[in-house]
């Protein structure tokens, strides 16, 4: 059976292109979504979380901070807002980012700065998504 082609693109670059993928697990807004080869055409919105791809026994994890996913003709395209491979994520940095975001959020709430509040909330979600990815990659 022919595998899937998975491409992850962010506005800044093409993050990933993998051929012969046997399974893609993605955090859809409707819940965890599993895509096997010859999946029906699909367009869905993604939540911040972990994108997992399997090729035979090999498994890779990517942190995504939200985006969109499209399945068409055995090609899975993820339009990610930002995406990182689990092995590239530093646990300390993600942890530091989480703390910084929480501090910013507190400060923004006190000053009632709407733009800053939204920014801080998004930063927090991103940091949490990264931490989750690191966790899952470690557990395999």
């Amino acid at each position: 059976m022919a595998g899937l082609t998975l491409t992850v693109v962010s506005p800044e670059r093409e993050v990933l292109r993998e051929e012969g993928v046997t399974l893609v697990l993605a955090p859809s807004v409707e819940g965890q979504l599993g895509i096997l080869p010859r999946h029906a055409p699909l367009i869905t919105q993604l939540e911040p979380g972990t994108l997992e791809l399997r090729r035979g026994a090999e498994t890779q994890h990517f942190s995504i901070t939200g985006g969109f996913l499209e399945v068409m003709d055995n090609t899975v395209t993820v339009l990610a807002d930002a995406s990182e491979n689990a092995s590239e994520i530093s646990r300390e940095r993600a942890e530091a980012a989480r703390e910084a975001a929480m501090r910013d959020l507190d400060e923004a709430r006190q000053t009632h700065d709407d733009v800053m509040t939204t920014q801080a909330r998004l930063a927090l979600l991103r940091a949490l998504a990264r931490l989750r990815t690191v966790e899952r990659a470690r557990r395999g």
Partner: protein
Amino acid sequence: MASPLELRRRIRSVDNTRQITRAMQLVAASRMRRAQEAVQAARPYATHISGMIERLVLATGNDRLPPILQPRPIERTAFLVLTTNRGLAGPLNTNIVRTAVSEIDATSDAIEISVVVVGKKGHLALRGLYTLSAVFTDISDQPSVLDIAPVTQLLVDGYERGDFDEVRMVYPEFVNILTQQPRVVRLFPVVLPEVQQDAREADIIFEPDPASVLEALIPRFVEMTVYRAMLELAASEQSARMVAMRAATENATELIEGLRLAYNKLRQARITSEIIDIASGANALADA
């Protein structure tokens, strides 16, 4: 006539300037290459998002479009003007500002306007002319999507709230190293990608449904459009600076040549008159 000492000082000073302009030229050249690569790297996302929007619009149907895509009468227009933070970039910022001003003035006769500026140069040039509703001067000249998120958020929120009914963006398009063309594009109401006449509604599953996905996707589309314009600005800035600094370096070289010639002439004249002095002195002694 300047003294030889003065001429030597001026030569040294122009030479120092030339070293600076040449260094800036080289730095701009290497940054320009990076900026052009960033423009290239942003293309796949743009292609995919346009295709996705096309399929979503087709599936939603024109009568069920989400509010963000529904047309409404235009009573207030916002302008987003993209300029650089730093100068020494030739006529780049002047040209953007000129285009922006003529665009804004042509509009403000009929309807209310608000102006949002990116870049210190645009801020300086426009703050005396209009009331600026927001200014962003902390965006790097190698922008990331996160850098520009506050800008798009402001525009998307403002449009959704109804603060303005149209948003136009003025930015320089990078045509080639010598040409940067100021361009005006409409961000809101969103210019949807052309749906092919013969496109059929494919049997696509949408989660949760096409209208909601479309509604969530539109802010990303606008963000991508602004991000790409920022990259065009960055490439334009570096190429304009490179050209301006190359011209400055050449001018300095010419100036130095002129000064050297004047200095040498002066030195020669002094030597000649000293020889005449000595010679005529010696002659006078011999005659006596």
